[in-house]
């Protein structure tokens, strides 16, 4: 039985706490009155069809967009006043990956990590560890603009992790990854959650979500339609998803049946 998103306020703020969150573009509402809480140390997946507002929600949680209404707290800080302290506590893989195209993979760590207050030797240790863990060692001297989408995605993920954040906000972390890399990332999520890090990610890879997420939220029509653990949702996640989403009939395009 799907759970309805919580509407009560906890005495201690959870890792992510949204109340009445709304947003829109050009007068078109994208998110309307979003309420949910994500406990610390959980792995939560945000599902929903294309254009349902998943990436917008990630940007709102990361403080990259101002909500039109409502409040957001992430890692114990109000996002509206978060600024630098908030960014110190969160790791983000945004929609466009936000990479500096003219730097190499390695230079990204050397230039950006010291900003988080890490000493040079510490940066080197963490950089080498992440490059090894995500199989990026062979491309460490490659300018990012020449990297494959998978390389860029893994680098963005490594940059989100390098300062050991409390909360990870990841937009489609599995998209573009090969099965081995996806497995590594999944294992990484499990280890991070075990050590108290909160992982909140969007995805369309339902089978992966089913294996890794402790909580699933379904976003549709600008609202959280239901939330709960995959075990609490009826049947497999895929059947549950298709039960919730209205499936359109594919239109008849007879000319496609006679290729030239």
């Amino acid at each position, binding site marked *: 039985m799907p759970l309805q998103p919580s509407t009560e306020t906890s005495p201690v703020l959870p890792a992510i706490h949204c109340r009445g969150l709304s947003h829109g573009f050009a007068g078109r509402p994208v998110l309307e009155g979003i309420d949910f809480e994500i406990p610390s140390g959980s792995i939560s997946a945000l599902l929903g069809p294309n254009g349902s507002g998943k990436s917008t929600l990630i940007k*709102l949680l990361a403080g990259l967009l101002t*909500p039109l209404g409502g409040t957001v707290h992430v890692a114990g800080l109000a996002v509206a006043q978060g600024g630098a302290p908030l960014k110190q506590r969160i790791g983000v893989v945004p929609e466009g990956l*936000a990479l500096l195209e*003219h730097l190499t993979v390695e230079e990204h760590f050397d230039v950006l990590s010291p900003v988080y207050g890490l000493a040079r030797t510490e940066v080197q240790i963490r950089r080498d560890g992440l490059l090894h863990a995500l199989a990026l060692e062979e491309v460490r001297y490659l300018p990012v603009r020449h990297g494959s989408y998978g390389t860029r995605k893994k680098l963005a993920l490594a940059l989100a992790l390098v300062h050991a954040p409390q909360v990870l906000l990841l937009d489609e972390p599995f998209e573009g990854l090969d099965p081995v890399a996806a497995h590594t990332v999944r294992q990484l999520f499990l280890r991070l959650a075990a050590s108290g890090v909160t992982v909140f990610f969007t995805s369309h890879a339902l089978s992966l979500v089913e294996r890794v997420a402790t909580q699933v939220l379904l976003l549709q029509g600008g609202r959280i339609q239901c939330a709960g653990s995959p075990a609490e949702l009826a049947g497999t996640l895929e059947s549950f998803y298709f039960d919730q989403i209205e499936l359109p009939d594919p239109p008849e395009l007879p000319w496609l049946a006679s290729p030239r």
Partner: protein
Amino acid sequence: MARLATLSAGLIRDHTRGLLAHGGMAGNNLVLAMILAAVAGPPTAFLVAVVGIPLLLAMASEGRPEQAERLALLPLSNWEHALLRWATRLADPVVALLVILGLLAGRRGVAVVGSLLLALLATRLVSNRWRHRSPGPSFHLTALPGPSTGLLGVFLGGMLRTLDSYAALLVAAAGLLYRIETPVPHPAALMGASLMVTLCLSTCTQRLFAPEGPQGLARLRLLPLRGWHLLLLKDTAFLLILLPLVSPFSLSSGLAGGLVSLGLGHLRSLRPSGRPQHPWQFLTGTTMGFSAVQVSSLFVAGIVAQTRALWVLPLCLILNLATLAWAGRRMERPRPGG
């Protein structure tokens, strides 16, 4: 043939819109200065020759890689590809402008235009092959102390991947030649050289984060740094390029002009551009109106600083710091929706 005509017309339309669109290269301060110089007539012919012609060539050699990618997907034969490539090159609005000017100027004009067209085609051939391969200069300042010196190196490298910096270098080289060749250089000429160098670089101040692109700006906004800190690093990178170039001429004029450009540029530099900024291009300005205000302000500040540096420079610094604080706060705030 009809489909090729339709296609080439579409490509030319796309290219022309790219050149003239709001946020296109038309907003570059140097373009504005060249238009004014061309209108002013013979006294500014030297300036037009030194900067205007390379500017025109760079404008016309701006390829549209997305066009090439799309064309490669179309079912066209090799000769059709070649025909389209040459048709779009020759029907470029900059080429058309050159031809009209040449015809108006008579027989000598036709010869000049012919030479320019050859130079233009050569520039295109070279730039299309080189522009997207060359990474440009990079500065590894990560070895220096301080958590953000690495970023300063990135910002310096970014500025030196724009053609604006090289136009400034060209003007500085011409000015240096004048300074060496002239036994007693006129102070007004030195001030003029200093301000022209500043003008060449000034579009960078409107688009401080253009070299990193929108994704680069998004990455910088994710860092735990105050907005003013990032802007100060950008200003430092700008001044590290400007000051050595103006120091042989008039340091006070260049510094005053630079501070005013940055001060006004802070107000605009967080706005997204209408088109992507590729390396080895002139920077895209914001609007012609803003360029006019910025260029006139930097000239006024630079001219007054030549004689009254003691009170003009602190004023320029105050303007710079005030807008730095304002834009820094704005940079920290999440973007509004809509």
